[in-house]
């Protein structure tokens, strides 16, 4: 039996909702459900009734520039799911909510911060035998206002990360230990993931993203367990500026979520350029 979310000691427990809560309130109109997955076949094969799909590649990323969509495209996306700037969005997905956290992070860049993650994600919902459907909800048009993205609070860019690292700033590399040490440019069986050099940003601590969740239930660990992992285990300080990164910034958005909302790191940013940018940048230092 899982510990109730509000008894886990999180800094901001409202950012997590349980599968039970979603099931009990999904017809209430209090929130909009959004599923974000890595596997493009999952949502169409069955999803929580009423849930919309947001695809990380097609809906959130600009097709031309390596960047997120424009304010116009985001407004169009939010209008389709019937959102207003005040709407409470509940996100869930596969891979222990990795992609749901990524979507939540992008929502924060656009100032839509009234978001929660359904703890345990899609797998927990299915394993509990809760209802799924293939029927898609109606596409709406709520006329969501166009808001330009504000990257300053939650997103880190390469040169700022370089300065941060040079000053001894806190960095959390959420990739595998083998990638972190540079022992491998990629995981076993993987081809080179697009970086010329292996290693990590100088001074970074290595905490693979999935350590923040229970391997069996996909639920986030308690605050005590997370503190053991990040604070006692890696000597991170919740009051210092912190940057998370991985390969392209998606896994690290999961850790960004855990640090910011569950442990209360006030000044944490996600570096989405991550290793595919840093590991290829001319003149940028690495450690192995």
């Amino acid at each position, binding site marked *: 039996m899982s510990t109730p979310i509000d008894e886990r000691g999180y800094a901001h427990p409202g950012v997590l909702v349980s599968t039970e809560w979603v099931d009990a309130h999904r017809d209430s109109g209090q929130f909009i459900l959004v599923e974000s997955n890595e596997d493009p*076949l999952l949502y169409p094969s069955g999803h929580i009734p009423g849930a919309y799909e947001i695809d990380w590649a097609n809906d959130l990323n600009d097709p031309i520039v390596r960047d997120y969509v424009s304010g116009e495209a985001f407004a169009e996306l939010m209008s389709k799911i019937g959102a207003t700037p005040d709407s409470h969005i509940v996100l869930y997905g596969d891979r222990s909510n990795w992609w749901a956290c990524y979507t939540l992070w992008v929502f924060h860049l656009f100032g839509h911060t009234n978001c929660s993650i359904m703890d345990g994600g899609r797998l927990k919902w299915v394993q509990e035998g809760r209802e799924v459907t293939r029927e898609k909800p109606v596409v709406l048009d709520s006329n969501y206002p166009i808001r330009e993205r504000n990257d300053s609070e939650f997103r880190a860019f390469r040169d700022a990360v370089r300065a941060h690292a040079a000053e001894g700033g806190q960095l959390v590399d959420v990739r595998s230990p083998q990638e972190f040490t540079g022992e491998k440019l990629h995981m076993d069986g993987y081809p080179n993931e697009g970086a010329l050099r292996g290693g990590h940003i100088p001074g970074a601590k290595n905490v693979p993203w999935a350590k923040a969740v229970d391997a069996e239930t996909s639920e986030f660990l308690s605050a005590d367990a997370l503190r053991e992992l990040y604070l006692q285990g890696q000597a991170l300080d919740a009051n210092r500026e912190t940057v998370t990164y991985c390969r392209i910034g998606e896994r690290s958005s999961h850790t960004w979520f855990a640090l910011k909302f569950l442990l209360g790191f006030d000044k944490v940013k996600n570096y989405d350029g991550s290793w595919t940018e840093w590991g290829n940048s001319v003149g940028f230092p690495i450690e192995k």
Partner: protein
Amino acid sequence: MSTLPPKIAEILDDLSFFTERDERIQALISLGQKFVAHVPDGEDPYPESRKVPGCESEVYAWVGLTESGGLDVKFAVRNPQGISAMALAEVLIQGLQGEKPTLAQDIPESLAIDLFGESLSMGKSLGLTNMIRLVRAEAAKLT
């Protein structure tokens, strides 16, 4: 330049008729739902040597020969959410079962992208591609 194994070419040809993304996805889901796991006797628990590296769907593959000397391709997909892996496993089984082992070498690594599209995440793409690589490598040992 090699050509695709005929049955796999046929599957891709059938999928090409679906010009709408949703229709194509439904067709791929149908393929995944046809997949039935087959594990050789005495192979449960599955040996690590059969595990597809880097595949989050926890796919295990066995490639052997039938009594008539054709390929015998079996998969197990442990993650019940691994529907793309199941669809690809079904494609590989339909395309290779009973065929000559050399035919497996004609499967391009790009098959995952050809089936599921370029918007696959790199991790998902790699996991699926490793299924193809493992089948090709195991089939090569049989030639």
